[in-house]
């Protein structure tokens, strides 16, 4: 296990290095000049040249890359060339919203999906099992922004019991206030995420229910609950953990849609704005942090999978030994 951990961690670091190089190169391929975002109609050619010098877009690419590596090594990610604010604290500030939003929605989604997925599997042949299956299909088919718009219409505009978007000016200093503003975004993500998770839990449970080992355990005298607890759940958990990891990473990166619908100042909205302005230090910082988060989630999901099912350590083709 220790060997696996070390190698998996080394793979994580290597991925990060490759990702940072790729990010830098891809961003420079996109045509555009960050100096443009600082200027307006009426700027003279001298002002344009001065702005380009100030933002560093007139520097050779290799110098820009070395500057990026230097900023990365200090973990402060440089300074925004548009706002002049340091990128590190800006990202931390945005994460303070995106991380709770994603995690709370994730926990709610899992809390909904696990029991519903089991019920849908155990009672697959009943009318409510079919209904649950249908609802989860529907949840997967509906775009997340549409769910958000409908929630806003019902709870904010029609009944006026929840805010339509934004966060209180005082932020997390006002925890109940901020949670009130996050309730609809959380419900939106949780609804969509739980729909797909329910499907996966149902599918994994159905596989287990039809397995030979479960039938063998029952034939050797185990009750259904004993057989499921000792053998079934472990086997069903492995694929579900993997999917949960992917869902969490997707939700974290895809939070931009919900942030846009609910006007939330999260990491996604910072990224969108920075891309429009070619604010390279901010884009690089946000994408680096997002990449790190996705790799870490994948790493943790793999780790938990192997704790739940130790056979994977020795048998998995992807264990990098």
């Amino acid at each position: 296990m220790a060997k696996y951990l070390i190698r998996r961690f080394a793979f994580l670091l290597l991925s990060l290095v490759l990702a940072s190089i790729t990010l830098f190169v891809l961003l420079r391929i996109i045509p555009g000049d960050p100096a443009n975002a600082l200027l307006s109609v009426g700027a003279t050619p001298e002002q344009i040249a001065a702005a380009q010098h100030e933002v560093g877009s007139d520097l050779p690419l290799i110098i820009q890359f070395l500057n990026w590596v230097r900023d990365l090594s200090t973990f402060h990610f440089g300074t925004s060339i548009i706002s002049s604010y340091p990128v590190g604290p800006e990202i931390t500030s945005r994460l303070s919203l995106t991380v709770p939003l994603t995690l709370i929605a994730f926990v709610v989604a899992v809390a909904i999906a696990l029991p519903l997925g089991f019920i849908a599997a155990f009672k697959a042949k009943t009318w409510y099992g079919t209904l649950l299956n249908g609802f989860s299909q529907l949840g997967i088919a509906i775009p997340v922004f549409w769910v958000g718009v409908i929630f806003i219409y019902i709870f904010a505009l029609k009944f006026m019991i929840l805010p339509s978007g934004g966060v209180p000016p005082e932020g997390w200093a006002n925890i109940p206030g901020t949670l009130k503003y996050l309730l609809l975004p959380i419900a939106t993500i949780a609804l969509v995420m739980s729909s797909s998770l329910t499907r996966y839990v149902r599918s994994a449970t159905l596989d287990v229910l039809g397995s030979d080992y479960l039938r063998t355990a029952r034939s050797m005298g185990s009750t259904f609950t004993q057989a499921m607890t000792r053998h079934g759940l472990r086997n069903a958990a492995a694929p579900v953990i993997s999917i949960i990891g992917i869902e969490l990473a997707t939700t974290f990166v895809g939070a931009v849609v919900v942030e846009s619908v609910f006007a939330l100042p999260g990491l996604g909205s910072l990224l969108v704005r920075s891309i429009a302005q070619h604010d390279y230090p901010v884009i690089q910082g946000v994408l680096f942090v997002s990449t790190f988060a996705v790799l870490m989630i994948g790493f943790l999901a793999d780790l938990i999978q192997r704790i739940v099912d130790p056979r994977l350590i020795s048998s998995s083709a992807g264990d990098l030994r």
Partner: protein
Amino acid sequence: MKPGKKFGVVGVAFAVALTLFATSAPANAASADATVDIGSLYEPQNLDNTGGGGQGVVEALNGNSYEGLYRLTDGGVVENLLATASKVSKDGLTYTFTLRSGVKFHSGKTMTSADVKFSLEKVSAADSKSARKSSFKVVKSIATPDAKTVVVTLSSRSISFIYNLTYIWIMNSAAKDFATEEDGTGPYKLSAWKRGSTLSLVRNDAYWGTAPKNKTVVYHYFTNATALNNALLTGAVDVITSAQSPDALAQFKSSSYKISNGQSTTKLILVFNDRVAPFNNVKVRKAITSAIDNKKLLASIWGDYGTLIGSMVPPTDPWYEDLTGVNPYNVALAKKLLAAAGYAKGFTFRLDTPQYDPHPAAAAFIKSELAKVGITVNINSVTDDQWYNNVYKKHDYAATMQEHVNDRDVVWYGNPDFYWGYNNTTVTSLINQAEQAPNARIQASLLKRANRIIATEAASDWIYLYPQIVVASSTLSGYPINGLNSQFYAYNIVKN
């Protein structure tokens, strides 16, 4: 547990959560201590109006946190602010300003002539990104004989000089970081800026002038107009500074809201590259202008709002006159002009169109209108960045669309190097003469003449003047309705 019970538990939990969080809006405080929540689409880029802060920093801080020697009121009148008096020499080249006593920056330092000198020089400094920089090229020297007096010497007369000073914030010369910190002399201090979300101002109790009629002002920033409108509908904001669509106004037509249709200075323009064929031909430009039914276009985008002006000059400029009849909508005339220009069978051109509203819709309308006179328009959608690079900097375009937001900006037609490349020596001379006019009456007369020539030659097609629509809760009063040059003074707003 049966599934039915599970649903019941989830439902009850959600209902409990709603009950816990669904508290009613806080009762209104006494109006002098009220918090005014303003909804806007224009978040500042940074806090420095000479450092690329953009439209948002003007809206939030101009007149609220930072003040100039003069103020441009919401009605468009220039009045004294940090300058109490000014004296102009007979040759019009020397301005002597007397500064107001007892004015302190928010940091506590007393404002002196050194700060005024610093602020004026900051606009024309090498690293200045101010769009007004070229207006201050005329400043030859700035002297500060004492702490209360500033003497500015110009290299040539400039009748707009005092007016242009309304754009210049007086900043603390000892301050270090203008992009991330605020230190003005205005009625509000910056309390907090949560980037991407809110910018809060709090009353400056040491303000030299009349105290604001509210205690706190919070600008809430949104990236889409729907979210902004929803915020007003749910009471999260009290006012939105600029409504973006007439369609959205229907939901505010009740006694709970007030819709103000103020004076705007933002023009939507079909810009020709007057340097290149076929747009270097006046007849072609006039033909296109006559072939497009601007009235229909305005109605289709803004309904009953907005104004046709027929030139670059909005009604708030002193040299305004209605020139909508100069190039009337007349398809037969357009065809005749095209034939006279040698384009009887029409031609094809590329229209570089910004991606944001209303440009795509306006471009599609123009395309269909020009098809009726045989002109084929290829719409090329461009990002802001592409527009700035290719159109503004390189002049690599045939025609484009753009909004020009400032007042008194007809003077750009006097600059042959400007991106539209209009080059008429008479116009350039009239605009230069107007700037050196001895009084405002002569200035207005000269600019009227210049504007008539520009309109007659259809240097561009000025499609319409945007409406300036402010929508507010009916509990609010005292807010600006014209939004000249994007400013939004908050100090007179009363919330009942």
